[in-house]
């Protein structure tokens, strides 16, 4: 059967079980969009307000469902608008397939209207990219894109197709998804050495990150913690792996991590790092970090070994495979005293709040959390509100906390929330944002309205770019350069203008009422919560600092 390039793209997407894509049309993408029209009974296309929102939606869609997100855009500005979304996915190792159209091949390289060398622009933020100007290469490239995005350490792949190829015809031979690349297998001897280190350790701590989620090894991790009788700390990318109430869960690690997690790392004699990269937000000072401990690192990506922190032993393999292999090698050892000690530290929390304020960040998160069930997906933007959400939510499922960790992209939230809600229509999505972040992406309200998505957006309205404001307060003598915009946005009116529901809250009671009302809506709701600009995210260890530099109150 002869099909056009665009039709072939649709067929290969169907081969991979894709039933939903996000995007925005344009001149060079006309053929792709014409095919989407034809395939609309099998592939749902979600039109966003902006390509960045579409890329974030594809990202949020994956994080909520585990299915690779696909985003379409036109050439030139359409393609460049994807850049922040692709970079966000890249930094958090999120698989994504971005399909851009480019000008017809005869015009390539001539600065044609809306021609951009997007494979060049995205070179450092994609796992791989394809420039397709020959239809023969097209089906293979799309299949490879899915394989590459999902193999080993996951990440985004871009396919740029010239417009003439989308129109050209070719015999389509149905195919199947390519098998994923085999991940590196560890030698048994290496794992035995790690087992020996664990068996000897008196005060081990497991520090884990997004690799556990990527490997879907949450269950194995919990069993492993019980087996070796150790406490654990998580990075922003792995909230929810270990139950919120679990005594082995010491909380978030790093700059805004819990006292217990950071202290345990400092006192430990063995750190077992699983699927995590010792980033500068965790090992704030790589020389001082966990200085009493031997360090073991397990990661699927060999280049992560010794990148940020030099480790004593590294195993390069999949986390699930590692845990399964090491399990029979572990000797029972009583570490109850150490676990009890670490658990004791959990009682101390650094959450001083503004006395004069009527509505506190913690109250907002607590109420939203208490009024929603375990199946609720929480999505954040970036700033103080993100850290409050990370600290106070009672995480219990890794697919239910969606946040931009590595890139810290303000404006990520609404797009990602839309992707999550489209992917999980039966779950409730709550989107925590700040007044600054929301001004970057509130345009996506139109998408939530068109698609009738019941996303509840909770705006932490401190009227400042709070996270930066906090640093200026602490380290720049309160010289508030460009963080106190005098904005007069009336969120209730703007929400209504978009066709959404808007609420305002200045007290916990008002917030409860607004949230109850929002829960009953079929479409999107915004709740603007007035909070004090002086609220801080605590505890905090300044960049480059150690546990002794921790600011608690």
């Amino acid at each position, binding site marked *: 059967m002869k099909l056009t390039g665009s039709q072939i793209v649709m067929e290969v997407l169907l081969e991979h079980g894709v039933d939903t894509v996000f995007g925005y049309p344009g001149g060079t993408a006309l053929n792709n969009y014409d095919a989407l029209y034809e395939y609309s009974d099998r592939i749902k296309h979600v039109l966003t307000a902006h390509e960045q929102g579409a890329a974030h939606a594809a990202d949020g869609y994956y994080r909520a469902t585990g299915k690779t997100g696909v985003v379409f855009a036109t050439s030139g500005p359409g393609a460049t608008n994807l850049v922040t979304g692709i970079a966000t996915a890249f930094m958090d190792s999120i698989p994504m397939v971005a399909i851009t159209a480019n000008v017809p091949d005869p015009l390539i390289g001539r600065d044609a209207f809306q021609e951009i060398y997007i*494979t060049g622009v995205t070179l450092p933020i994609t796992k791989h990219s394809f*420039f397709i100007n020959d239809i023969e290469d097209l089906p293979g490239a799309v299949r490879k894109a899915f394989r590459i995005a999902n193999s080993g350490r996951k990440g985004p792949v871009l396919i740029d197709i010239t417009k003439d190829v989308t129109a050209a015809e070719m015999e389509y031979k149905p195919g199947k998804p390519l098998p994923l690349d085999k991940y590196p297998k560890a030698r048994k001897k290496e794992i035995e050495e790690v087992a020996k280190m664990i068996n000897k350790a008196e005060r081990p701590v497991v520090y884990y990150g997004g690799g556990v989620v990527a490997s879907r090894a949450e269950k194995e991790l919990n069993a492993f913690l019980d087996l070796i009788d150790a406490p654990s700390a998580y990075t922003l990318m792995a909230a929810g792996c270990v139950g919120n109430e679990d005594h082995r869960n010491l909380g978030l690690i790093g700059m805004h991590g819990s006292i217990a997690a950071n202290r345990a790392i400092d006192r430990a004699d063995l750190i077992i790092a699983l699927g995590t990269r010792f980033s500068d937000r965790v090992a704030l000072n790589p020389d001082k970090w966990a200085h009493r401990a031997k360090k073991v690192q397990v990661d699927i990506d060999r280049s992560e070994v010794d990148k940020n922190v030099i480790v004593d032993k590294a195993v390069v393999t999949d986390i699930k495979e590692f845990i399964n292999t090491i399990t029979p090698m572990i000797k029972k050892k009583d570490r109850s005293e150490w676990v009890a000690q670490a658990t004791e530290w959990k009682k101390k929390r650094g959450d001083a709040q503004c006395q004069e304020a009527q509505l506190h960040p913690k109250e907002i998160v607590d109420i939203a959390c208490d009024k929603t069930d375990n199946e609720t997906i929480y999505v954040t933007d970036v700033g103080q509100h993100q850290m409050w959400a990370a600290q106070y939510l009672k995480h219990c499922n890794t697919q239910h906390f969606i946040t931009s960790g590595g890139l810290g992209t303000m404006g990520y939230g609404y797009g990602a929330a839309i992707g999550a809600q489209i992917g999980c229509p039966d779950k409730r999505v709550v989107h925590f944002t700040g007044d600054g972040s929301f001004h970057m992406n509130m345009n996506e309200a139109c998408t939530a309205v068109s698609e009738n998505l019941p996303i509840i957006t909770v705006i932490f309205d401190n009227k400042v770019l709070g996270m930066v404001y906090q640093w200026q307060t602490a380290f720049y003598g309160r010289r508030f350069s460009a963080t106190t915009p005098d904005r007069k946005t009336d969120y209730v009116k703007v929400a209504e203008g978009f066709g959404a529901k808007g609420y305002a809250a200045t007290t916990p009671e008002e917030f409860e009422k607004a949230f109850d009302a929002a829960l009953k809506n079929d479409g999107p709701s915004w709740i603007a919560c007035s909070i004090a600009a002086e609220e801080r995210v605590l505890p905090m260890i300044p960049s480059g600092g150690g546990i002794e530099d921790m600011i608690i109150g």
Partner: protein
Amino acid sequence: MAEKNYKREVISILVDNESNVLARVVSLFGRRGFNIDSLTVSATNDPKLSRITIVFTGTDNALHQIITQTEKLEVVRDIFTLGRDDSIYRELLLIKLRADKTARTAIREITDIYRGRIVDLSKSSLIIEMTGAPGKIDAFMEMMNCYDIVEVCRTGITGIGRDLTVDDEPCKA
């Protein structure tokens, strides 16, 4: 980082012979801040593959990073270091000197000793060609510094392992 022992290593990379490959490799080096001394790209006996040879000075850790980051690129089929003791390195030098009759004889003598060749000659200038291990080229350049150098071109190192197994090894799929 504790270690400050800088080492010079020659790294050989087999890559798919397709457009954009060099851009991918160089973009990675730029992004990760890997500073390389030289880079050559050339054909191999397999038209589907090209070889990139780079010389890199850095710590063991930096070397580990450059190799493990580069091997992740989809276009990289194989990557290995060419150890000093079990490889041959060569470099080509072209050097143009201003030299009148009096200087010429001495320059010729030195060139002969280093097994170079004078490939172009005019009344006031000459061009010398020389291939050899980089150390030899460095030593020759030392000698030439006493003369009036107009221009120097060095190709950068290319290298090959003595070991038979390297090239016989099947490429990774």
